[in-house]
């Protein structure tokens, strides 16, 4: 029995000894490194080429259409959404050029944005000019003249029209769009190759914003 245990112990010791770990030869890395395949970008197979070409054409066409649409959308303010116009007319935004002088505001807008906003020097006593700023909407430049009518805020938005559109040549204007929602009225018209929009927050007198230029505004509408 003891001899058997002695043999078992001896076998265990021999197995540990004969199967002990060894150190790998130093040259192994070079051998592996030389045989290591380099990563190669897979060449596109022949059947894939037409598919790839079609995809490229489709993507290019899509980009072209998108680019053309985006250009069309910035031609003038008429294509800016009412929601965007209300956002630009937000009185809390502040003015880049604060002033109550109509001539200075006109000059500043002309100099900075090449938009002519003719503001009458005399107007209703209820109107107070606050200043002007320029906003860019997808490439279209819009001049925003902020003012108040009594306690109510108003903004005159003006942008240049493109030559493609039928401009109203005279100084008279017809409203192309009248929209009242969200506590703010929007009146839009074209005149002298420019597009105009008044955003007015007066709830009791929706046409009060016209007092900026017309002392008798309600009567004109």
């Amino acid at each position, binding site marked *: 029995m003891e001899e058997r245990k002695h043999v078992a112990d001896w076998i265990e010791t021999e197995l540990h000894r*004969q199967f002990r770990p060894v150190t790998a030869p130093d040259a192994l*890395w070079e051998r*592996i490194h030389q045989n290591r395949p380099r990563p190669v970008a897979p060449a596109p197979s022949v059947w894939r080429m037409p598919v790839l070409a079609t995809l490229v054409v489709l993507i290019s066409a899509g980009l072209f259409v998108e680019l053309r649409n985006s250009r069309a959308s910035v031609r003038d303010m008429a294509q800016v959404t009412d929601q965007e116009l209300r956002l630009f007319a937000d009185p809390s935004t502040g003015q880049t050029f604060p002033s109550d002088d109509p001539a200075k505001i006109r000059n500043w807008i002309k100099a900075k944005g090449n938009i002519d906003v003719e503001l009458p020097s005399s107007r209703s006593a209820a109107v107070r000019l606050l200043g002007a700023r320029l906003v860019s909407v997808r490439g279209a430049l819009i001049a925003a003249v902020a003012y108040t009518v009594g306690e109510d805020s108003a903004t005159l938005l003006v942008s240049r029209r493109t030559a493609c559109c039928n401009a109203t040549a005279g100084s008279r204007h017809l409203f192309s769009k009248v929209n009242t929602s969200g506590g703010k009225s929007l009146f839009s018209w074209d005149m002298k190759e420019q597009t105009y929009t008044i955003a007015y927050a007066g709830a009791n007198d929706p046409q009060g914003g016209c007092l900026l230029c017309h002392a008798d505004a309600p009567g004109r509408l």
Partner: protein
Amino acid sequence: MVLEDTERDLIDRCQDRSDPDAFRALFDLYKDKIYSIALRYSGDPAVAQDITQETFLKLFAGIGRFRRESNFDSWLYRLVVNACFDQKRKTRRFMPLVDSFLDFLRAPGRSALDEVLRAEMSGHIRSVVETLPPEQRMVIVLRYTEGLSYEEIAAILGCPAGTIASRLNRVHKILERRLVRLAGANGGKKTRG
């Protein structure tokens, strides 16, 4: 922990950036482990180098597919075990006999006769293990070269831990049967000597 962090960092660098320095560092970290298994399984240094090379080439080619939540050691062990099973050349021996014999002669406090007898018995162990089926031979290698537990070996070879225990037990029994007479004779000679 430091080793695990290093290993994780190396694997990340190999996977994310194919960093050549990371591949080299990973090789340095595991080369002895892989080569030892290959050598102890095949018994032939040339074959062991072939197996090691194949294992590392598979490792480098497939490391991108290694899932980070898996156990890297287990994955690596499976690579080398499969490479061992795949190698076609038949092993002729487990250790170079001359090297083994010189090891015995260098051991202090033994007579030349004792060493010759021990070498003879060691030769019997080698000849017995050589005749084992590949799976049993691999169990011996993973157990005695790597010192892995039954559970770890079972996970690598894809069989229950009980199977590993019974395989090892069977090998021990075979070795005991074949060596008991020789061991007794060796002990007797030592007593007389």
